[in-house]
């Protein structure tokens, strides 16, 4: 009910919010992947942080998920995968997609926007630290999701390169998120990662319990909802593969929580 109310209130702008935006590699009036959708809304309307979100599905009482891309503006796979998801038709459940969470950072093709790193503005148990973070958080709360997925990439590979976290899925310490992540990682390594690229095999990262001020930490700690940080790597992995794998991972995670695409989309 809250999700519907939030969406109804946020549907003031439909299909025009991207006018003039230069999104990452794309330059033009709109992003290339903006199909007509059942409902859209905007966060921080009429500001330089204004960004659009979309609802897919919603034709049943199934679970709802939230997909977030573009929290870091230079992690192209995240917002391009989110754009690809906008093309889906759902067979079950519904989905809120925020493809370009930090539009200013995406425009600058930099990790951080004018207010700093958006994914460091979500302390558990407290109000988010910036206006954009609060708007995004309120959308998540109003949506009452079963699952939240935040799409990222890293320079290097988790547990191969000391500082980097790529090729890993980080689940919340909530419900069966860890179990789903473990199953997914095994399937990905069996199905899509070439055997030769052994260091690019996916791993399950540490469980997220709210000890860092990140969106998914807060989702787990404050909402008790399953959430996942999806981290691909740009290391030796071409962009199209990054996008394809990110999209596939999102689909599998959503499917594990009962949100499924129609077969024709697969």
């Amino acid at each position, binding site marked *: 009910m809250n999700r519907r109310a939030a969406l109804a209130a946020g549907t003031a702008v439909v299909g025009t919010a991207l006018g003039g935006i230069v999104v990452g590699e794309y330059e033009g009036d709109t992003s290339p992947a903006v199909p007509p959708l059942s409902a859209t809304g905007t966060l921080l309307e009429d500001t330089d942080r204004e960004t659009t979100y979309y609802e897919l599905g919603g034709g049943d009482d199934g679970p709802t998920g939230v997909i977030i891309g573009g929290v870091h503006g230079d992690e192209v796979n995240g917002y391009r995968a989110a754009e690809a998801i906008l093309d889906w038709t759902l067979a079950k459940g519904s989905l809120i997609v925020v493809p370009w969470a930090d539009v200013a950072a995406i425009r600058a093709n930099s990790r951080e926007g004018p207010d700093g790193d958006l994914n460091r503005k979500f302390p558990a148990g407290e109000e988010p630290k910036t206006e954009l973070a609060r708007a995004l958080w309120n959308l998540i709360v109003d949506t009452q999701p079963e699952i939240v997925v935040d799409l990222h990439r890293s320079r290097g590979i988790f547990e191969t390169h000391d500082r980097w976290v790529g090729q890993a899925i980080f689940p919340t310490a909530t419900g069966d998120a860890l179990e789903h992540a473990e199953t997914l990682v095994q399937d990905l390594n069996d199905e899509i990662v070439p055997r030769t690229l052994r260091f690019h095999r996916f791993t399950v990262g540490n469980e997220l319990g709210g000890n860092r001020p990140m969106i998914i930490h807060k989702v787990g700690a404050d909402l008790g909802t399953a959430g996942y940080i999806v981290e691909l790597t740009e290391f030796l992995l071409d962009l199209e*593969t990054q996008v394809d794998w990110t999209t596939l991972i999102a689909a599998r995670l959503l499917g594990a929580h009962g949100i499924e695409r129609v077969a024709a989309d697969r």
Partner: protein
Amino acid sequence: MTSDWVDRYWQLAAGSGVWAVFGVLTLPFVAATVDVRLTTPLAGPGYVLFVGLTIVGERIVPQYKLVVYWVPFLVSCYLLSVVVAGIVRAMRD
């Protein structure tokens, strides 16, 4: 005599055998990085060498982006090629 030595060093440093080994080390690996669907087992040696360089390099000079490792990778591949081609040539002679 001088010409003979120049020819020997040229063969050692830039003979066809050197470039053949260099190609085997680099081309399948480069193809895999261009499109992961082009990955073959032949990419394995170059892949392991590149990843190994980054693992070591990240600990010594963590400020560098991983893309800079293409330079030491190509140099390493060339030196390996000289060694391998030299060994093959010595065994053949």
